[in-house]
């Protein structure tokens, strides 16, 4: 009997530890990001670091301004959202309201598949197909640019937007739509004036999820954006926050390396804010039903 009780105690302790591991992991990641990111920001100066327009990490007199990276990440993400959201939302509407069950059932795996493709594969296809097309269409010397990154990111965030929006649209109470039809509204009027507005918070959650994905993507962007520390311009080679880290990490040392950790901290803060917004939205969405 004693033995049994001991085992019982040990197992409940083990399960508690497993649960606690998740909290420990998040805390460890946050602490390490902050500790390793702060020193370089202090040494360089907050203003010079965040608002400096020049990044020359390997020059004799190095300059560590990450404004180009921040703006590129913001513009790149915004562009991807601008393209991805309408297409994603409309596809979600198709799946939720127009397609019959058979078509929807064979369409959904497509979306899941799109989500499962590794980012390096997106990067490779972007590099081989998209970059030359952009180069030829716009008569550029080099096709690796912000536009290429935006297009790749727009495709990559589609699955998040589609699946979250579809869930939200499916959850709209049937009565709302029936009431709209009873008042004489057409199908499209019902979808766009009743269904979408009532699924709003879920759709916004999908968009925020997409923003998080886009701002955190590194490899695919690395392969198509050119990775030069320019201020963002649609047809210029640019560096994102993520690619600034990836590009130099392999050989960086000293202050340069510390500055890369500071970039990671900035990215981490962006992500945490986005996650916070997402959590609030998802709670709101599920609370209203």
């Amino acid at each position, binding site marked *: 009997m004693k033995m049994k009780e001991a085992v*019982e105690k040990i197992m409940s302790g083990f399960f508690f530890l497993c649960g606690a591991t998740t909290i420990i992991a*998040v805390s460890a990641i946050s602490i390490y990001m902050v500790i390793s990111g702060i020193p370089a920001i202090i040494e360089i100066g907050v203003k010079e670091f965040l608002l400096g327009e020049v990044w020359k990490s390997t020059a004799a007199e190095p300059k560590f301004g990450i404004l180009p990276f921040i703006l590129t990440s913001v513009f790149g993400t915004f562009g991807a959202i601008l393209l991805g959201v309408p297409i994603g939302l409309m596809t979600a509407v198709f799946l939720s309201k127009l397609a019959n069950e058979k078509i929807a059932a064979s369409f959904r795996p497509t979306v899941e598949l799109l989500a499962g493709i590794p980012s390096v594969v997106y990067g490779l296809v972007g590099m081989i197909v998209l970059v030359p097309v952009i180069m030829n269409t716009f008569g550029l010397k080099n096709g690796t640019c912000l536009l290429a990154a935006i297009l790749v990111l727009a495709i990559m965030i589609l699955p998040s937007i589609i699946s979250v929006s579809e869930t939200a649209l499916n959850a709209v109470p049937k009565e709302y739509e029936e009431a709209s039809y009873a008042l004489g509204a057409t199908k499209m009027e019902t979808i766009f004036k009743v269904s979408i507005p009532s699924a709003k918070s879920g759709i916004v959650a999908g968009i925020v999820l997409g923003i998080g994905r886009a701002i955190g993507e590194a490899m695919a962007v690395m*392969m198509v954006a050119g990775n030069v520390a320019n201020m963002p311009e649609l047809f210029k080679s640019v560096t994102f926050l993520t690619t600034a880290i990836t590009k130099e990490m392999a050989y960086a040392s000293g202050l340069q390396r510390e500055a890369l950790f500071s970039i990671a901290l900035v990215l981490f803060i962006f992500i945490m804010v986005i996650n916070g917004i997402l959590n609030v939205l998802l709670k709101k969405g599920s609370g209203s039903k």
Partner: protein
Amino acid sequence: MTHKLSTKRRMYGLALESAIYLCAGITAALLIILILYIFYRGLGTITWELLTTQRSALRGTIGILPNILFTLYIIFTSMIIVLPIGIGAAVYLTEYTTSKKLTHAIEFAIETLAGIPSIIYGLAGYLIFCLKMGIGTSILAGALTLALIILPTIVRTTQEALKTVPDSYREASVALGSTKWHTIKTVIFPSSLDGVVSGSILAVGRIVGESAALLFTAGTAYSLVSNYFDALGTSGGTLSVALYVYVSEHGRFDVGFAIASILMIIVLIINVSARMIKKYLVYDR
């Protein structure tokens, strides 16, 4: 009595409906073109030599056998690490916890882990596992990092499965005099196995596709290592990392597309099997 809609309303409906079909068409076309293009460029370049040798600078040939092995090693290692922790955390959340605060904290932690991008995991893993713990750039460090990345997936799918186990099972077991752990071992675990399996399949998909988190933790090496335990301590690039290295550093697009085809086949298999298990899960209950 028939009412005709005004032209404006009809145009409104027509425009929106065509926009919906157009966008759904774009989404479907994107995927079909992507898959066909990758297979078109890649399948032909997969040769026996590519799959069964390692890269030789001397002969100027490229082989991805080490990368295939590294991928398998890293899948195996990270699953061994994550399964007990992930399942344990899910069991704690559904069977044990009594404190609401702690539950919220754990759930918040899981949501946060799911939202952190790979590149951050890569840096944190490098700082914590490679430097602080002194493991160095190695398969083990990569596997530990990946274990953190897939932890939310395992916890969530296991939790879903545990929630579907009816309370009457638990009550019956306890009524027969079982202790809590005995109930979990004999009643809860067997009933939640399919959830764990489907979560594991999804996790494998994530591991296979991961690159940014492995670049600094597991590295990019491509030499054959004699056995699994030696490999744990050495640097090694998985297939996705190898794709990036061959394309970006060596300009070998043929090898890139060959690996991309292999990755796509794996993704397809994972997708289909995950769906089959889901179906089985639904029929089962």
